[in-house]
């Protein structure tokens, strides 16, 4: 019994030996797990808290970027921001679409998009650009970044009349008045005389006895350059930013918000015009040859004519009866192939030289304006268009042309005794106003 009992006690004590350790270790394990879980929870909570803080900061950065970009669009570069520390460079998102937030984050990490760090050296900042070319309005997309958290703000800014302190500052808006502006390229050759400002955001080539007086050649933006050839006389100035012009479609939409040129195609004053005394313009087209007289009449507030193709030739007379109001001729549709062609002694007559009633031709078509052979013209031509990065609009004057007015186009060619004298500024670039952000969305 004793032996049996002794064996039994020994066996039980062997089984019990270390039980306290095991219980203590088990309890320790439980407590350790509790500690770890608590700490993990604390870390997670702090992480969430930081993300929330960065989320708020990223929005402020995005809005700061939108404002900085709008400031740059309105006022250009600044002397006290020479390295672009605050003002972003002008940028258009390729393809007319802004990247998603994820695409943008990837782009920042692989160097496609360079953040402007604000404040300098911090882990927060912004990047901004526009969808399309800024015109009467600008669609600004701005991304804010804070420690890897990104938010995107899309704003729409429209041009407004500038307050006095902006208007009066010639440093900010150096564009001045233009007799001639070619957005992309201008060629002037053989005895051409230009009175007033000449400008381009692209290449100007002048050669062989061409003169610019009462104005300078303004080269605007990084792509602008000039080549002055034989016996050319001109003063050249350079501006850091391109001059921004609205497109014909944008101007039309501002004047006719019901639908711009498309609306104007069916809501115009074509019946006020006469061709050899007969009212109306059949099919919105004019083919006037051999002493035909076409009269465009103005009216208070402006008469708007919509044409798709125009051809004047051989002593045709185009009379702008603009005593009672301005005359506007719109060539559409946008991107259509129609052209305005005048040659061989076609004569443009203006009944009033009041600048407020000046006749204006707006060309949204790709066909361009052509004046050849002894044509005298007294009005402004606006042929600048852009869609998805593609620009068009051409003016070509050749052989003894005498024009008075303002001529704005994507490309311009003047040859052989063309004379342009700038008149009251028919159009001012958008730099004369300021951008006002009216739409905000995230």
């Amino acid at each position, binding site marked *: 019994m004793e032996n049996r009992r002794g064996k039994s006690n020994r066996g039980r004590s062997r089984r019990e030996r270390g039980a306290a350790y095991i219980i203590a270790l088990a309890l320790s394990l439980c407590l350790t797990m509790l500690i770890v879980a608590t700490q993990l929870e604390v870390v997670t909570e702090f992480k969430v808290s930081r993300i929330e803080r960065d989320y708020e900061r990223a929005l402020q950065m995005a809005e700061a970027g939108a404002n900085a970009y709008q400031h740059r669009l*309105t006022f250009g570069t600044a002397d006290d921001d020479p390295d672009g520390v605050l003002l972003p460079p002008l940028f258009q998102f390729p393809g007319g679409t802004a990247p998603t937030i994820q695409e943008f984050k990837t782009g920042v990490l692989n160097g496609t998009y360079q953040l402007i760090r604000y404040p300098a050296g911090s882990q927060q900042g912004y990047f901004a650009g526009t969808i399309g070319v800024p015109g009467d309005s600008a669609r600004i997309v701005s991304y804010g970044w804070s420690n890897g958290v990104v938010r995107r703000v899309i704003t729409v800014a429209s041009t407004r009349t500038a*307050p006095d*302190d902006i208007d009066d500052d010639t440093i900010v808006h150096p564009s001045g008045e233009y007799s001639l502006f070619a957005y992309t390229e201008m060629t002037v050759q053989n005895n051409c005389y230009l009175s007033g400002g000449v400008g381009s955001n692209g290449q100007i080539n002048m050669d062989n006895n061409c003169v610019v007086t009462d104005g300078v050649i303004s080269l605007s933006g990084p792509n602008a350059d000039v080549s002055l050839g034989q016996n050319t006389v001109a003063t050249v100035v350079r501006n850091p930013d391109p001059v921004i012009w609205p497109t014909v479609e944008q101007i039309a939409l501002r004047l006719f918000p019901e639908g711009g040129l498309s609306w104007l195609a069916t809501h115009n004053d074509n019946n006020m015009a006469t061709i050899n005394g007969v009212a109306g313009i059949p099919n919105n087209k004019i083919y006037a040859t051999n002493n035909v007289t076409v009269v465009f009449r103005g009216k208070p507030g402006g008469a708007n004519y919509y044409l798709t193709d125009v051809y004047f030739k051989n002593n045709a007379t185009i009379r702008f009866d603009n005593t009672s109001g301005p005359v506007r001729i719109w060539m559409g549709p946008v991107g259509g192939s129609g052209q305005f062609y005048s040659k061989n002694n076609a004569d443009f007559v203006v009944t009033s030289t009041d600048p407020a009633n000046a006749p204006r031709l707006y060309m949204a078509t790709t066909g361009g304006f052509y004046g050849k052979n002894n044509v005298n013209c007294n009005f402004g031509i606006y042929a600048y268009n852009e869609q998805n990065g593609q620009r068009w609009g051409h003016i070509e004057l050749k052989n003894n042309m005498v024009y008075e007015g303002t001529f704005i186009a994507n490309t311009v060619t003047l040859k052989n005794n063309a004379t342009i004298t700038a008149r009251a500024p028919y159009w001012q670039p958008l730099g004369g106003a300021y951008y006002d952000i009216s739409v905000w969305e995230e």
Partner: protein
Amino acid sequence: MRARTRRGMTIVEVLVAALVLGIVAAGALASWSLASQAAANKRTIEIGTAIAVHELERLKAMGYPYLPASPVQSGQPVPTVRWYDKYGQWLGASATTGDFKVKSYVSILIDRDGEANSEDLKEIVVEVWNGDETRLLERARTLLTFGGV
């Protein structure tokens, strides 16, 4: 003799086990205390962030033309100070103390012609401190331009 040895071992076991448990329990208590403190800190930071956003939006809502640059004394901008309670409520213009002290600065970062006008690019900086201004909880900033957001 054998039984006495066995009994002694058990006491040592219990003591060691108690020691281990004690250490772990102390850690757990410290951890609990830290977690409680962290929760309070987190709340403070969150309220600080919320107050900073509130102040920034309030200043932006005043509008660019009505937001002059902060006065400068001895080369340093003088901030506007406002006080908030622990729930993030503004304590009123007459308050001189509170749980959160908010200092706001408006400065002109780009001045194109040496005149205060519509061509300036302005900056708003909002700092949220604890009541005795020993700890900066949040510093928020943004840019303002004429016609901007």
